[in-house]
């Protein structure tokens, strides 16, 4: 491992690095805006060069440029044009690609995640009279409904890791075992959540039919313990029998991650 481990990095940076490492070596990723595209660009350059990186407005199999690469900013960043195998439109991307069953790996972020992996992207509090109204779900709902697997990237905070999302915009395992099937959704998984403190799997071996379908803490970031993670979680966390400590980020990972965010859109200090 060239350059050794980085010594100076934030938990948000560790989150993005850990998320990038979660990208599989093959298949088709539909990568949502925000931290997903940042992590996805890092993954494409370092960990998963063969994965087809696609976006919801119509970039298919994007290869970041060899020089001067940066993460796309916003859904239609021009950097997504040259280097893509195909550039077309949203009905191709969210329709033929996603609805057609071609997305093996969806990558999302949201305002809240709950015990069963459901996400909320629309409003905090009662939807009809919210404490805080958010921008909206964008393509989050359909990726959660229709991707074969989902990785969620989400800072570990009590206000985000809640027992039940205030509004389920994006189904994980809905209301528990069999929930996806009962609502007409296909099985999904193995799903993952990467936070600023650790990595979670889910307690189901068959995409939501059996098991408790709850988040399970499988790994923690260097120097953190499951207790610290629990303190930033609103429910009584399931923890794996053996909790791995995640390999620290390398100098290469952190250097590249920072170069991919030259304007500080994603990881400017204080954002997460």
């Amino acid at each position, binding site marked *: 491992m060239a350059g050794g481990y980085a010594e100076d990095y934030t938990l948000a940076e560790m989150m993005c690095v850990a998320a990038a490492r979660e990208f599989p070596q093959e298949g088709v990723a539909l990568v949502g805006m925000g931290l997903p595209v940042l992590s996805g660009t890092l993954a494409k350059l370092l960990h998963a060069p063969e994965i087809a990186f696609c976006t919801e407005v119509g970039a298919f199999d994007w290869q970041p440029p060899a020089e001067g690469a940066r993460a796309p900013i916003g*859904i239609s960043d021009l950097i997504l044009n040259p280097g893509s195998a195909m550039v*077309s439109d949203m*009905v191709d991307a969210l329709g033929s690609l996603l609805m057609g069953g071609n997305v093996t790996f969806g990558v999302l972020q949201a305002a809240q995640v709950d015990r069963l992996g459901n996400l909320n992207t629309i409003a905090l509090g009662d939807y*009809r009279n919210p404490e805080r109204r958010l921008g909206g*779900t964008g393509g989050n709902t359909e990726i959660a409904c229709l991707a074969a697997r989902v990785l969620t990237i989400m800072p570990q905070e009590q206000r985000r890791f809640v027992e039940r999302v205030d509004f389920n915009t994006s189904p994980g395992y809905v209301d528990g075992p069999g929930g996806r099937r009962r*609502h007409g959704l296909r099985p999904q998984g193995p799903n993952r959540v990467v936070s600023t403190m650790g990595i979670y799997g889910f307690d189901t071996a068959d995409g939501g039919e059996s098991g408790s379908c709850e988040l399970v803490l499988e790994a923690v970031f260097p120097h953190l313990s499951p207790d610290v993670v629990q303190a930033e979680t609103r429910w009584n966390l399931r923890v794996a029998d053996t909790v791995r400590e995640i390999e620290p980020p390398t100098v290469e990972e952190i250097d590249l991650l920072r170069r991919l965010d030259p304007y500080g859109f994603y990881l400017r200090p204080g954002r997460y």
Partner: protein
Amino acid sequence: MAMSKLMSVHDAVERFVGDGDVIYAGYTSVAYGLCYEIIRQRKRRLDIVGASVGGQATLFFLAGCADRTRTGYIGGALRPGAVTRAMAEGRLRYEDYSNQAIALMLMAGALGIPFIPTRSFLGTDYLRPEYQDHPGGFLGQQKWAQMDSPFDGQPVVLLPALRPDVAVLHAQRADEEGNIQMWGHLGDARWAFWAARKVIVSVEEVVPASVIRSDPSRTVVPGFRVSAVVHLPFGAHPTSIAGYYDYDYGFSASVMRNAGRSQEDYEAFAAEWIDGVADHAAYIEHYREVFGQDALDGLAASSGTTPQDGVRYGYAPIRRFQ
């Protein structure tokens, strides 16, 4: 040769945008030049629709031009403060869909079918009856419906077709007849061109018909569906358009972003950048004065590639065969 559809930004908006219209106002390359003009002309009671509605929608709301929206996302360049207050206070009515839903609804509108099914939304709270009749909404039971497929018995959500009164778009180029060519990300534009009753397109370049007709596979909508073509260089500023200029992150962050913080901030922005300039050419000229020609030049989409195409069309000449 059909009649020219070229006209000024003023005339295009005056003739084809009416109070109370449902407006599709773009997603990827937003026709800001046309949107600013809609604000200058004080159009009222607009319903802004699109897969996502960005900064242009926030400007419409704050300018008092729009009081409804159907979209998957409200956001983009401007801070959300003033808009979310308007939603909470009932001054802005809204129906939340998703990017996919609106794109499909525009497709259904284009295809003249009353609805299109999706297997998205299943398992979400969107479908709960108490939310379908939410107090901020305006569609009620017309928002969507559920049924089981008669072919496989599986549940689907039926999304109603969406036919905007006017689509306002920005494209790379057109000829005078209104044949529009675009490349790069099309977002939901391809179907909006066909779904809308009237289509107004601003373009970076007006080219001879022979250029369009030499490469007809690049055309995204034929001229007979287009009401007006406006020649408007930098017409998508501060958003980007493939082959011409990139997103203006600087302007967006330093100037536009704060316009969404409060009504007062909006008024200050509008006084300088919308009502304070006569049209989009004057807006760009003002940009030059404030930021310099170098800032404008720096937006040029100069990295990346030119097609190595070798594309040909053609047919065999009339010949003999046995």
